[in-house]
């Protein structure tokens, strides 16, 4: 018998909500706004996180960068290495490649500096990178037109060049076939063999790539490399690979430890973890700000429920006289608060989703609504209803029937 009357108490609270829609709507408004802001701010935080992580992934997959010199900042890829004194050698490169197929997939040396380009009467200031044929694969930066230089070009120190998309646009008229054309890099002639895909970053689109051997001869005059880009065999072995590289290179450089070593390794995985950590904190911060508005919404519910209990004191007395138990009264008022909070929550979720969609559609602000945040927001609005409805419902159930019946 108990369960049926509890269900009926819940039904009565539904009627009471439907009976005063404006008041119920206004009461739910606080939770609605709270949930909508939780959803959209978390989506915004997640979006930012995704974007940064995505940018990092764009640099190449399972990427490790070995740099000459002492650690400088945490950038995974440095666009200009001309201010670094190169300390990495051919022997280092071979030692890295020899780490074995379980650990390492590809490795390519790279040195980068600024250069002046010239074609006919046009000029462009670009970065020039000397590297080997593995580079496009490692950096996920491939030719869209023509062919990247191969090992024979490296061996022969050929004057060939692969140009970035922005460089192509600056030097050539649209539609012109650049393959086979001769351009000048710092005055020296190079034959264009490829145009690289557009990556959307000046660091890549406004760069040209030449064989490392040619770079050493014509540009830097130094046989050492500023950096070595390494692609691990799998994301799971990146930290192992880093350890192996550090161990081998320390031995080759006759150094005791990474403290004060003349090279360092930056691991994409660690950067990703850092970025996600920062973005996670950011998201959490946004969520807690939004959470506060949810609590304010809850206080609004409590306020209205207390008023409602007072207004309906006589009703409560009548119900008690007719046989309502304390828990029937509790359930009736608690259900009312929970229904209001959950309805506010559901509408808030819808507004939040619509808001983040609109932010992307009209302002290109990346945001990602996750199922977790939706479930959390729903769960929280339920909890808010239970928590802030709990006290008024308890108050209602503790009323003395006679005093309640006498209440004017």
């Amino acid at each position, binding site marked *: 018998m108990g369960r*049926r009357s509890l269900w009926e108490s819940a039904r009565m609270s539904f009627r009471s909500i439907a009976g005063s829609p404006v008041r119920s709507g206004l009461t739910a408004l606080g939770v609605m706004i709270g949930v909508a802001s939780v959803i959209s701010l978390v989506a915004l935080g997640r979006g930012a996180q995704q974007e940064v992580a995505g940018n990092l992934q764009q640099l190449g997959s399972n990427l490790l960068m070995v740099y000459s010199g002492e650690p400088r900042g945490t950038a995974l890829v440095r666009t200009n290495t001309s201010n670094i004194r190169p300390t990495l050698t051919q022997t280092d490169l071979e030692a890295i490649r020899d780490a074995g197929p379980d650990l390492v997939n590809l490795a390519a040396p790279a040195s980068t500096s600024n250069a002046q380009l010239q074609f006919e009467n046009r000029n462009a200031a670009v970065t020039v990178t000397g590297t080997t044929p593995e580079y496009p694969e490692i950096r996920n930066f491939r030719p869209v037109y023509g062919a990247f230089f191969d090992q024979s070009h490296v061996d022969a120190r050929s004057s060939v060049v692969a140009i970035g998309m922005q460089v192509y646009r600056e030097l050539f008229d649209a539609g012109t076939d650049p393959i086979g054309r001769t351009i000048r890099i710092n005055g020296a002639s190079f034959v264009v063999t490829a145009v690289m895909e557009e990556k959307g970053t000046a660091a890549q689109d406004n760069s040209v790539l030449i064989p490392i051997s040619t770079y050493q001869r014509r540009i830097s005059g130094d046989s050492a490399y500023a950096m070595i880009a390494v692609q691990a065999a799998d994301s799971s072995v990146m930290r192992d690979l880093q350890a192996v590289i550090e161990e081998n290179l320390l031995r080759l450089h006759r150094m005791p430890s990474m403290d004060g070593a003349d090279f360092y390794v930056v691991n994409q995985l660690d950067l990703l973890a850092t970025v996600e950590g920062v973005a996670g904190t950011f998201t959490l911060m946004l969520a807690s700000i939004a959470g506060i508005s949810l609590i304010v919404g809850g206080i609004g519910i409590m306020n209205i429920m207390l008023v409602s209990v007072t207004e309906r004191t*006589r009703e409560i*007395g009548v119900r008690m*006289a*007719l*046989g309502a*138990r304390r*828990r029937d009264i509790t359930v009736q008022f608690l259900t009312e608060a929970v229904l209001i909070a959950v309805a506010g929550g559901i509408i808030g979720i819808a507004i939040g989703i619509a808001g983040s969609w609109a932010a992307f559609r009209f302002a290109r602000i990346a945001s990602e609504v996750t199922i977790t945040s939706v479930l959390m927001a729903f769960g929280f609005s339920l909890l808010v209803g239970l928590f802030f409805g709990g006290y008024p419902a308890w108050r209602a159930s503790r009323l003395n029937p*006679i005093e309640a*019946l006498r209440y004017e």
Partner: protein
Amino acid sequence: MIHLDMVGKAYQMGSETVHALRNVNLTIESGDYIAVIGPSGSGKSTLMNIVGCLDTATHGRYTLADHEVARLSGDRLAEVRNATIGFVFQTFNLLPRLSARENVELPLIYAGMSKSDRRKRSEVMLRRVGLEDRMRHKPNELSGGQRQRVAIARALATSPAVLLADEPTGALDTHTGLEIMRLLEDLNTEGTTLILVTHDHELAMRAHREIRLRDGEIVHEEIR
């Protein structure tokens, strides 16, 4: 059925103790019709509330249908009120948002009756009080007499053994009041114990038994 043994009710008002009821000995058999009269403030409502298990005595023993009421838990008291007692109030106390029928269904909900049974039962009760064509009306769409009829139908819904009517005609004109009295008396004839609080000596004369209260004590009792 109802047995009060030296029952009293005292309120502590600061340093003073107010005795709303004292030393009440009263036995009411099943099917009785009793009128309680007395001046304002003499403790009539207090007595009704104790008999109806809405309030508990501070002194003495009260047994209702072999249950010692003081020993019952809050939930059991609610069940007793639901199953054994029917209240009719001077001011009707209908819930304004609910229709006549839904008001009558209230005690049946707390009794755990199914929806279809409730609908049947509420219709029977409203027919019994002559309001079968007013079932969907809200209280504010009914006259005072009709409202009191709905309240009586509601009090009767769970077929309680005892009907407590605290000045049921107090808010009605003489004619309508008499109609309500006839309805209550019919129910008594059918076997329901009826306890009626009134100021009206003429109405009290109709009861089988009359109890007069003054300052919380029974000062006179007569059987007709």
